[in-house]
């Protein structure tokens, strides 16, 4: 895919930004719908997330008194840009045309940027709820990031490559990494839930304590863009885990036509990401919010330890040649 037109189409249209945008709207719809059904509610119609976005984009932007406007405006854009960029390195149908050794590290760090933007927004809002929320967001970052990174680094250990596309290809030859490294898979799912700040990890935006946390002073397009950044990182996170851990779940029969084969691959991608979303939504509906000090215990005592145990297991497996 060296044709520049194809590359631009890949980045802008499919499976680039346009698809990401559309899919994140669908994702939000599915998430809200699943949770609503679990809560015995009807839930929103299909176009509701899109309608919400358009409406918020058109709303008046209010500056809190004394806020540093350029940075306040820039932070949501940076967050959204980071998430959208990271999506380009995640394989959707085949390997990503932009793949290189180390793109996994790049994606992980780009996915951290929204949290940092959120902290910045909270700090700049000159609002006590936002400031406390921003502090909480960063404190949480230090707790979940370690096990999350450890869990996502383990496939590289086994596959011997730092490229997401290569890890995916490796799984098609060997076994699905979710089966080979189940603990890492679960830790990664929980880490993703924490990264997306969803219940039980919605501590930075705990409504009943600090109103909306860093989101309190966001209005109009700032709110819309930040919200979009959050939704798109849900898609990117799910796609990343789908590629890294569920890459082996390929269609068992070879399909003749290239277009048909691509369609099948695409449908598989949708199925995997929606399955991950389903798990995340069920966790969201079935739990209560934990406290920051309790998350500290969960994160360091259990998640990090589980991830480290998985490192040990992987090393033993590699030494004895199991699964390779």
């Amino acid at each position, binding site marked *: 895919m060296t044709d520049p037109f194809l590359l631009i189409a890949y980045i802008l249209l499919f499976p680039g930004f346009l698809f990401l945008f559309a899919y994140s709207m669908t994702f939000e719809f599915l998430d809200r719908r699943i949770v609503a059904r679990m809560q015995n509610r009807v839930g929103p119609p299909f176009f509701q997330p899109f309608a919400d976005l358009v409406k918020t984009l058109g709303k008046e932007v209010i500056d809190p008194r004394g806020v540093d406007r350029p940075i306040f405006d820039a932070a949501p854009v940076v967050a959204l840009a980071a998430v959208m960029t990271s999506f380009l390195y995640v394989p959707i149908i085949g390997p990503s045309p932009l793949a290189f050794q180390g793109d996994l590290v790049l994606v992980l760090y780009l996915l951290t940027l929204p949290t940092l933007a959120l902290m910045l927004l909270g700090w700049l809002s000159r609002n006590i709820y936002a400031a406390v929320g921003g502090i909480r967001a960063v404190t949480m970052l230090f707790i979940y990031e370690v096990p999350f990174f450890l869990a996502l680094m383990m496939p590289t250990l086994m596959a011997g490559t730092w490229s997401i596309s290569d890890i995916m290809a490796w799984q098609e030859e060997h076994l699905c990494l979710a089966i080979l490294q189940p603990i890492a898979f679960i830790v990664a799912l929980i880490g993703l839930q924490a990264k997306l700040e969803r219940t039980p990890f919605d501590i930075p935006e705990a*409504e*009943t304590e600090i109103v909306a946390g860093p989101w309190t002073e966001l209005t109009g397009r700032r709110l819309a863009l930040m919200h979009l950044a959050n939704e798109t990182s849900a898609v990117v996170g799910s796609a990343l885990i789908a590629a890294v851990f569920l890459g082996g779940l390929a269609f068992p029969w070879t399909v003749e036509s290239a277009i048909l084969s691509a369609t099948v691959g695409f449908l598989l991608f949708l199925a995997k990401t929606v399955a991950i979303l389903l798990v995340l939504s069920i966790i969201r509906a079935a*739990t209560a919010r934990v406290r920051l000090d309790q998350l500290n215990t969960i994160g360091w005592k259990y998640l990090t330890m589980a991830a480290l145990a998985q490192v040990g297991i992987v090393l033993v497996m590699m030494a004895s040649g199991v699964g390779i």
Partner: protein
Amino acid sequence: MTRIVVPIGPQHPALKEPVNFRVVTDGERIVDLELNLSYSHRGIEKAAEQRDFIRVLPLIERVCGICSHSHATVFSKGIEEIMGVEIPPRAQYIRTIIAELERMHSHMLWLGVAAHEVGFNTLFMWTWRDREAVLDTLEELSGNRVHYNMNEIGGVRLDLSPSQVEAALARMPVLEERIRAYVGMVEDEETMLTRFRGVGSLSREEALSFGAVGPTARASGVDYDVRKDDPYLVYDEIPWNVVTDTNGDVYGRTKVRIGEIAESLGIVRHCLENLPGGPIRAEAPKAAPPGEILSRYEAPRGEVAHFIRTNGTARVERVDIRTPTLANWTSVAHCLIGRPLADVPVIVAAIDPCLSCTSRITLVKSGGDLGKDAPPPNGPRGWSR
């Protein structure tokens, strides 16, 4: 970390009613607390002195939106006692039925709110859905969902027809099943347990000395329940138990409330099945002889006390209302010091605060801006110790 003052309220998502806490935190930990609860005064006590009993009852009922029947019953009970009027058994049974249905819907509402405070919205949606069944029953029996207006001096306003009784009984099995589901949820849901266990602990001695009432006190092993201590209506004739718990924390209060929903259901069912015949009201004189009474009643949130003095006319000389929430505030302040900020909504919600009934007394609605030019701090040491 430097100290931060986090204002909670008077408008805040955690609070369903206006109250203002100025929480001083050191990082996430609360080190000091100031309380302002005077936002929704309506001057009911003064207004009650100007009206005759017939007009006072609807007014008293509006002291609280949730325990409306409680306030009306405790008031009419007191007036009837001063008058020496014995209300017919059927009226007593009907009052008891409404009272216990009210307790059920209040506790279900609380359970939902408590779950919402810790971000467990699923339980919130479920309990509020099932609460609708109780509210529907109340609407069928009284014609209203919230202010039932069933009481009048000397009896009740409406009789229950056999078909109404049947319809109400038919709803009971479903509710029974739902209550069992809640018990399971509260005892098994790990994230909720971590937020409730050991939070807002109150020992038996503390509960007594801070004057806690209702489920808040009963969760600490205090077995005060006016229904047993000073039986009114038909509570001494029917089988039921006082629910207590020894945990003393929010988890204990949850367990007590769920236990009480089950007990109330039993009482309602018993009363509906054994509803005696006869008239529903006794002839009551218009004026009450001079007298004074401390009328006590176990509302869903705890003991309500009305101190009523009459002067031989059809008006009260004075009615002094002590609501359960005011009695429980002292213990809340004690529980909050030293806890993380995240526990504020949980601990405050655990007493099931009803702020409008607590601050019902003055005449002018307070709209004073208490933000920047707030009064000198009156921390918990000022009023709780």
